[in-house]
């Protein structure tokens, strides 16, 4: 028995399931109640679970995360929504200094089972602060775990797994994919573990690493490359901290080439860490340096030129060409 769902629906169903399974799960954020969130991810949940469990918060991100810390200390499992990526920064102090460190500070006596959901990435024609990719800032912070879903089925499972985690999870949702594609969900299936990467297309010539919104772009690039006789292996990283390097290293040892693609800025982005680790572990297998494809190191531009700024299929293929030509 399967259902065809969008990513938005998958997340909504996953949140609902988590709330049904555990009465300690609470949702909090701006407009998550009656409105169901600006992207409708929490649609209908307040109606069914009540205002005590689906909490419309004042417009204060530090307040949302800081009070969620207190709720977690009281034994709840808060799932907070940051309305847009660029609005997470008022909560940055609470996330980095408190959420990430309380388990360590208390020598394990206080658990922090919190999920911070952040719609991230661009491509929706929005104004400033609504299209950013801040994942590296959180992956750089010990104590946090960071994951990104890329498709509806993962959305359904990964949000439940993140909520079940006793560690705080930054949960990144590719907003431009929310309502884009549908996929078949089998609710009786057994999902992959949360902190694992996955080969989403097998290939032999170049390993392409990606996550979140760029996975779809990379799959299209692989399709296009296949038409030219080039076989790309695409890996959906899914977990950004910790990284699940085993499938990555296995793949690069076979292909000898790796390209990392993300929407975030290249400088000190996830690609830099992946390039370093691949080089450390696969030095003698590499036929070319690990190449990175990402946004330019500029602030996010006005939306009329965001397609020039964001890496697309051609920029991925350009990197693939450079790797193969090296």
């Amino acid at each position: 028995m399967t259902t065809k769902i969008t990513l938005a629906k998958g997340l909504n169903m996953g949140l609902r399931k988590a709330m049904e399974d555990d009465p300690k799960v609470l949702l909090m954020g701006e407009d998550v109640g009656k409105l169901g969130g600006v992207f409708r991810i929490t649609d209908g949940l307040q109606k069914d679970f009540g205002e005590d469990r689906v909490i419309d918060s004042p417009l204060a991100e530090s307040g949302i995360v800081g009070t969620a810390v207190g709720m977690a200390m009281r034994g709840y499992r808060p799932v907070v929504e940051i309305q847009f990526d660029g609005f997470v920064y008022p909560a940055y102090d609470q996330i980095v200094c408190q959420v990430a460190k309380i388990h360590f500070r208390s020598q394990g006596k206080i658990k922090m089972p919190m999920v911070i959901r952040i719609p991230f990435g661009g491509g929706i024609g929005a104004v400033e602060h609504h299209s950013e990719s801040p994942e590296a800032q959180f992956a750089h912070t010990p104590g946090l775990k960071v994951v990104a879903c890329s498709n509806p089925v993962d959305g359904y499972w990964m949000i439940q797994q993140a909520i079940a985690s006793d560690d705080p999870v930054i949960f990144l949702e590719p907003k431009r994919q929310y309502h884009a594609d549908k996929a078949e969900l089998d609710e009786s299936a057994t999902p992959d573990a949360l902190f694992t990467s996955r080969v989403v297309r097998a290939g032999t010539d170049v390993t392409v690493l990606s996550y979140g919104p760029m996975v779809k772009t990379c799959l299209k690039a692989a399709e296009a490359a296949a038409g030219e006789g080039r076989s790309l292996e695409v890996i959906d990283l899914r977990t950004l901290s910790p990284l699940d390097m085993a499938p990555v290293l296995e793949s690069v040892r076979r292909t000898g080439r790796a390209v990392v693609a993300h929407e975030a800025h290249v400088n000190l982005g996830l690609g830099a860490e992946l390039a370093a680790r691949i080089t450390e572990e696969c030095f003698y297998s590499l036929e070319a340096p690990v190449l990175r494809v990402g946004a330019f190191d500029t602030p996010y531009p006005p939306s009329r030129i965001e397609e020039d700024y964001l890496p697309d299929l051609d920029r991925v293929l350009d990197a693939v060409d450079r790797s193969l030509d090296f």
Partner: protein
Amino acid sequence: MTHSSGFGPDLAEVFGPAHQDGGPELIQLLTPEGERVEHPDFAFDGTDDDVRGLYRDMVLTRRIDTEATALQRHGELGIWAQLLGQEAAQIGAGRALRPQDYVFPTYREHGVAWCRGVDPLNLLGLFRGVDQGGWDPDANNFGLYTIVIGAQTLHATGYAMGMQRDGVVGTGDPDRDAAVVAHFGDGASSQGDVNEAFIFAASYNAPVVFFCQNNQWAISEPIERQSRIPLYQRALGFGFPGLRVDGNDVLATYAVTKAALQRARDGQGPTLVEAYTYRMGAHTTTDDPTRYRLSDDVEKWKLRDPIARVEVYLKRNGLADDAFFAAIKEEADALGATLREGVKLLPDPQPLSIFDHVYSEMTDELAAQRDGFAAYLDSFEGSRA
């Protein structure tokens, strides 16, 4: 009241200047001279034995503070945040608690920690650098010290919201109903987090008492740099009551905190209590207050010492004899000796323990780092690993 413009009344007239003595709004039940006074709204409902107990708490808390300061001078602590002068505020607030209440402290609530039964050696351990808070918060309902100014006020508010969801607010059962105290200082009142905590607590009517020890100084910055109006009056703008209590009067801080806690437990929401006091010592042992404040002020505040006034009260009214005071002095000396000996015995953490509690569920990559570090340490002769 004068109206000089379309902007309404002259604010200086509405709010008045900051008074050295806390102004007419100050709630006081025991004067600096040791006289009990009446207040129309608040009364100390404890026994003589309770007063003697509060006196003992304050003396022992001061001894913890002076011993810790000395231990820092001797190189046994890296730093110490002194509470000298704030004993009444903390003991009054601490003794007003019930076991089921929960406290979110700053890094200076040594007196409240004492009231909650936290071993003072645990406080010293943090400042020695052997851990970042060695006590179990849930064992005494006393949270870990929070170094980031004001961050804990949001945690307190969220915890109070959790209590509401647990059905332990407003049931009328005194053993069940619970509330939270969020401690912070005058400097923290400028932080966004404190203001957001006020907003969340007001919005959800959360059972939290915001207990601000206004000790007049945020390191070198005087209260005038943080606020143009008395801090307690800010509460009104957020939609809940604020009170200013003589923070050097343990009977008043006890009575006011007790009433505010009861209000919170009853489901009537938050209260801001401004305990008007003075930081007699430095901000921490690294600070030099002679660079920024007058010794005259300190001398004036010495006359309002929180312990001396209770001592005068007890003696003048024949409520405690010489043997009582001698016994407490003996107890304080013994406590001091215990701290001096105990602090040197606190074990340094093992290097590999760095990795133990980063996560509840250790990641493979961190385990690999730990193993690599262990192998590296093992490569040295006489390894500590």
